[in-house]
């Protein structure tokens, strides 16, 4: 059984084991496990072994390779890495190889991490189930007939199935937190601007954030400390000091005020999910937290607001995939217009096309004011709701998703039902605040359930310490999915 990132880094740094051994074990584990899960789109075995060897050499020379020394990491395939493809789960980028490493990939490697492969996702991050993908659907390690969630389904499943100790995902409307919840791992979406987006293939630029997933909050804190921080290549990256998240994990929770909003516990919420979330909140109360009822009046507009903004940005962000400079080009275009139309028609999946069309419409002259501009105004109101709420609470607790993982194929024909699975997560993206998903129990059918904790801007440290101390008191995260226990 693979150890935690914290333990691996410690063992490698103290020469208890070599990074190469760890990488080899990890690759073998992926080899034996991923056949049923399809968490990975690509495994870079040779490169990982080579990289691990460099880490070992550095240690042999007496150097410190960094806090993630020899830790195998899986990276979502919408984050650019050099050597091999970055496909975004799309046919249009099937053969695309990035010329550069994303900021996050650079940071990870500079900290001694070993990237072992790229994980599956809904095409360009557009989806909540990792079913909208040019290749195979990622299955939930807890139940192969269920979805892993999305769009970072591959990253969540890879961690849940203990193929890697930690993974990197991206979250535009819940794409880290919801799959983390469906797969029983911890996933953190930082404050907008906390982690550089340089090298993250843009979906909704004003909402996208990269973040870590791991079994334990401690590992998430360790990774977040590595990837967070200012990057001048991303104008929206914030130049604010990065606290030592690991050092703050055991800060006492006394006096912690947890907000609970009716808007997050109303109609459509599965009773088992409600039960687990309420039990988790009770648990936190025993650890010194108090519960404060709050009101987020514009919450009901979040889904509509989100889908206008995210599709508008996506329609523009994805304009560059046209077959002219890179990516899929239709083999025999009739003319220039046909080259554009056919290359894009053949390269994009149905959900991507749907969102591009929605966004194009929302930005069209005559509709801009009614849709995009109005959505921006609603977004401001939602942001203010949270600012107001965080005057009186330190964190807001809620479910991550209304239900546990749904059945594969269940919602693919009903986009609206699929969109509603993001209902509790998208507000954090709209408001630009941070939020974490922590395993808090299982349904009767044995499916994981997650607790969401949302914090004010740059409140990641607090969320991590609450999550960590909750995990210290519970054993949900110690449960191992059946698909992994055979090992």
């Amino acid at each position, binding site marked *: 059984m693979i150890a935690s990132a914290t333990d691996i880094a410690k063992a490698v740094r103290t020469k208890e084991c070599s990074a190469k051994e760890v990488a080899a074990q990890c690759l073998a584990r992926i080899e034996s496990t991923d056949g049923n899960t399809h968490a990975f789109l690509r495994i870079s075995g040779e490169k990982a072994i080579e990289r691990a060897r460099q880490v070992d050499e550095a240690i042999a020379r007496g150097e410190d390779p960094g806090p993630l020394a020899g830790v195998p990491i899986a990276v979502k395939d919408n984050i650019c890495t050099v050597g091999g493809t970055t496909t975004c789960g799309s046919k249009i980028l099937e053969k695309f190889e990035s010329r550069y490493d994303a900021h996050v990939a650079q940071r990870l490697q500079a900290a001694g991490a070993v990237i072992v492969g790229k994980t599956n996702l809904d095409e360009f991050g557009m989806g909540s189930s990792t079913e909208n993908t040019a290749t195979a659907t990622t299955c939930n390690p807890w139940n192969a007939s269920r979805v892993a969630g999305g769009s970072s389904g591959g990253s969540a499943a890879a961690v849940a199935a203990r193929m890697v100790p930690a993974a990197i995902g991206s979250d535009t409307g819940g794409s880290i937190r919801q799959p983390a919840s469906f797969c029983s791992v911890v996933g953190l979406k930082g404050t907008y601007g906390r982690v550089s987006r340089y090298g993250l293939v843009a979906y909704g630029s*004003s909402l996208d954030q990269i973040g870590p997933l791991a079994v334990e909050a401690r590992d998430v804190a360790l990774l977040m400390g590595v990837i967070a921080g200012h990057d001048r290549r991303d104008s929206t990256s914030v130049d604010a000091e990065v606290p030592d998240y690991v050092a703050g994990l055991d800060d006492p929770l006394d006096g912690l005020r947890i907000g609970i909003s009716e808007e997050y516990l109303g109609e459509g919420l599965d009773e088992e999910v409600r039960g687990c979330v309420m039990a988790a909140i009770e648990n936190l109360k025993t650890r010194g937290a108090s519960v404060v009822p709050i009101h987020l009046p514009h919450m009901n507009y979040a889904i509509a607001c989100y889908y206008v903004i995210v599709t508008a940005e996506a329609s523009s962000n994805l304009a*560059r995939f046209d077959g002219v400079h890179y990516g899929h080009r239709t083999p025999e275009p009739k003319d220039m217009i046909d080259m554009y139309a056919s290359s894009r028609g053949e390269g994009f999946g149905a959900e991507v096309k749907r969102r591009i069309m929605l966004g194009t419409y929302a930005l069209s002259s005559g509709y*801009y004011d009614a849709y995009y501009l109005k959505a921006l105004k609603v977004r401001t109101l939602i942001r203010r709701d949270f600012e107001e709420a965080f005057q009186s609470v330190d964190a807001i607790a809620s479910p991550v998703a209304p239900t546990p993982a749904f059945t594969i194929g269940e919602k693919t024909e009903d986009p609206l039902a699929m969109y509603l699975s993001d209902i509790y997560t998208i507000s954090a993206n709209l408001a630009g605040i941070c939020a974490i998903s922590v395993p808090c129990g299982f349904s009767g059918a044995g499916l994981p359930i997650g607790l969401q904790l949302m914090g004010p801007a740059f409140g990641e440290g607090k969320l991590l310490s609450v999550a960590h101390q909750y995990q210290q008191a519970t054993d949900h995260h110690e449960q191992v999915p059946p698909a992994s226990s055979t090992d």
Partner: protein
Amino acid sequence: MTDQAITTRTIIGLEIHVQLRTATKMFCGCPLKFDAPPNTCVCPVCLGHPGALPVINRQALAYSMLTGLALSCDIARHTKWDRKSYYYPDMPKNYQISQYDLPLCEHGHFEISVEGDTRRIRIKRAHLEEDAGKNLHDVPGCTLVDLNRAGTPLLEIVTEPDLTSAEEAFVFCTELQRLVTYLGVSEGSMQKGHMRFEPNVNVAIDVGGTEYRTPIVEIKNLNSFKSVRGAIAFESQRQTAAWQEDHDYVLGKVPNENRGWNDDRGVTEFQRPKEAAHDYRYFPDPDLVPVDVTDEMLAGVTARLPELPIARRARFMSEFGLSPKDTEIIVGHRGTADLFENAVKCGAPVDILGKQFVNVWLKLANDRNVPVTDLSVDAERMARLASMVADGSVSATAANRIAEAMLDRRDPPDLLADELGLVQVQDTGAMEAWVSEAFAANEQAVRDALTNPKKAKASAGFLRGKVMRISGGKADPKLVGQLIEKRLSELRE
């Protein structure tokens, strides 16, 4: 169709793209090079690769603000970046980062002088944007794309439709080029495509008090002043003729259109109607943060705003008494005017410096095909040479030779004059002897000067030349002239 007399008035507005002379591109660190091999000045950002993000070039922002101030614009204290969407192979993101509803500069004006009249042309706005790459059609059967130019910072300046003739537009464009080079914000090179012009032209036709207006034509992508003048003049005539042919050729009935200028044939050619306005789906670029122009930023740029050519020309004429023609030549280039002014500050007598500057220094520079500022003669040495002529220690003619010597040697002009034996002789005794020698050797000229009224003046000049030659240029020509006159009048008596 009509026998009634008509009067016409051409209405012209200009859109001008000025390439800024920053070291790097608008949103990435790639260098701006004019003639680099295709696709060598590129990076993930300007190639529009997935995941790459833009970062604004602060220098481009400062240059734009400086230009805006020089055009008397209001500088926005809050400005932002917008995406303008359209598909074209030379635009890798398929959107252009530009400024839509909050341009950096607005509501300015620019004064030009046309045939002695000062005209104030209102500036509607000036905003920053990125240039596209280039589609190359050199290879038959395919289009190649060079993205070296993609992401080059452009300032788009838009005037109100205040220009009334091709000539005015021509003057406006040349003055604007002078302004941006004066400010140092652009190289303003036409050959390198640093300035591109798009005039909007239509004609107001008055028939007995009733006015008709022809549809507005946008002439795309002109890249020389001559083509601006030619295209507008042609359009003005073409539109008037078209209306005379068919009175339904008026705004509203016939769609506006885009036309291109065919330089070889000297005509504009139809490109496409503007009936269906293209929907660019502008929206704020979420990858960039809005810019708040602080007091400090504005003050910093304002402090760097130099005296502008039009004001400087007026001052040079009134303060230094220069002729309009000389002023035009000296003030045309900022460095040249600075050099002149520094030489005055170093004590040069303005009247002599003015003549020397134009007839000696600028000529020497011109012969060598370099700017006068690159002659390796600084203001102080120029001032000294002018002073030497003023105090009579060298003649104006001798100064020419000294000036040439100054190009090769950094010694003071006094030393060079001495070495060249050009220090003017003020000794009347020596000069009297030279005059005697010249009179003895040129008896016919002396006779003509004394007796032939038709030739008197020329002959005296001839004699003076002879004296100068005998003196080896050292004689003071003014003094020589006086001595010759004296000797002639003695002979007359």
